[in-house]
């Protein structure tokens, strides 16, 4: 098993010495992306520090997915600049989609090993690392099953393990748990937060859920309906280590209130 970096939960993950994964800094500078006439992202600037957990909230169709795809390099901006430092991100960015998107003809283990396979890593090493990644999401015992034999929550965990297997420095998630029941969702939120604390990677998490954003993130950005304007950019003052009890805390309620107010406000 790969040794996990020890971190101080109070000071945050970015100061971890010897953390081999760590995070990256992401700087978007006047980024613009249009589809034909439709300007989806207009002059968008945002700076995300190393090891930050950022939640992006916004109305449906406002361009959140487009923003994530721009950061991942899956689509190019028409103008502006996206800087990621350190710049060795080719194999250090991982993406989790709203649905699991597994390969139905491969076992769970082979699905998780896929990114390593595409990167050209030998079979013994990649299966070992895939096993370890499955361990991290609590799915070791399902490794020889096929996706069709899993529940929705299990499939999503496989998808998460597939993203984690390369030890990414930048983890992008596009409404990953939106299709799951609430209990499963709470569990996966808690696990993701733990993994983030352990690894100190930079996370950008797109969601429609205010509760989820407040529970997970250290910083939340609320976007306007048109052109990806930033309505609110707020640091969430909540404990680093979070569990379900935090959901009942007054501080949690007040952070949610703040996000809700921004969401409801007219553009």
């Amino acid at each position, binding site marked *: 098993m790969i040794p996990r970096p020890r971190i101080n939960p109070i000071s945050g993950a970015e100061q971890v010495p010897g953390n081999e994964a760590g995070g990256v800094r992401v700087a978007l500078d006047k980024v613009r992306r249009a589809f034909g006439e439709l300007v989806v992202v207009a002059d968008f600037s945002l700076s995300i520090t190393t090891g930050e957990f950022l939640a992006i909230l916004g109305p449906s169709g406002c361009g959140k997915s487009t923003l994530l*795809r721009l950061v991942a390099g899956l689509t190019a901006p028409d103008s502006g600049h996206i800087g990621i430092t350190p710049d060795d991100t080719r194999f250090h960015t991982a993406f989790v989609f709203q649905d699991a*998107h597994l*390969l139905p003809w*491969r076992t769970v283990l082979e699905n998780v090993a896929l*990114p390593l*396979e*595409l*990167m050209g890593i030998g079979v013994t090493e990649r299966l070992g690392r895939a096993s370890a990644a499955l361990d991290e999401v609590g799915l070791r015992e399902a490794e020889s099953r096929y996706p*069709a*034999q899993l529940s929705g929550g299990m499939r999503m965990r496989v998808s998460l393990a597939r993203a984690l297997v390369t030890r990414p420095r930048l983890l992008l998630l596009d409404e990953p748990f939106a299709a799951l029941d609430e209990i499963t969702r709470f569990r996966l939120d808690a696990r993701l937060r733990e993994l983030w604390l352990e690894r100190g990677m930079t996370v950008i998490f797109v969601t429609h859920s205010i509760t989820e954003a407040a529970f997970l993130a250290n910083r939340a950005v609320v976007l306007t309906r048109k052109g990806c304007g930033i309505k609110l950019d707020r640091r969430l003052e909540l404990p680093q280590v979070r569990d379900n009890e935090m959901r009942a805390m007054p501080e949690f309620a007040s952070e949610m209130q703040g996000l809700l107010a921004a969401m409801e406000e007219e553009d």
Partner: protein
Amino acid sequence: MRKALPAFIPFVIVVVALESLVRAGWIKAFLVPPPSAVFETLIHDWRELFGALAKTSVGALAGFALSAVGGIAIGVFLSSSSAIRQAFYPYAVFFQTVPIIAIAPLLVIWFGYGMRTVVASAFIVSIFPVIANTLTGILSTDPALRDLFILYGASPSATLWRLRFPAALPQILTGLRIAGGLAVIGAIVGEFIGGQGLGSVVDVARTQQRTDKVFAAVLLASLLGLALFGFINLLSRVALRRWHVSEQN
């Protein structure tokens, strides 16, 4: 077997109804033979009929195999770029619209009487659905998965063989299922002109007003098509067992 049972019921009803109608004189026996006469012919002429069936089977299977291999290869080739698609796909469509009956005499000129003409005819008739389904299957790969492959720097060939081709498999098998039925039709048409097998039996029996024999040959040809269809279904069950693995439990 139990699943096949409902399909036999209409068959039995039609056979019984035909038999009674012909015996009652409502239908002339030289237009539609009574099923009992067809059955008698099947037994009486079994050597000729089953020999013909064997030939037709070989012709249809060979044509189908060529279509499967060639169609998948052409489909994969066409999927490689939109420029290639624009240049060649119209010809594939054109190939499909060629009326086989009209070019069958040409096939005889090119390939002579016998098996080669039959195989060519079966091939020409059955290749298009394989090409079209392979192509659509490959092109309709889940965009999210394509993004995933791009993210990890997969080469075009890795993307083809680890993602696009396997993802297209269900659709390719659908193409093969259609091609199986068409290959039998193509083989029979080829035999009409190329002179052998069930096609030739039908052709000769027709000129002799032997509708019973025509029906017997048609029956065997249909059974051949059915068998091929069943075989391809079996094949796709095996190939796709992981897609639907939960159904087995």
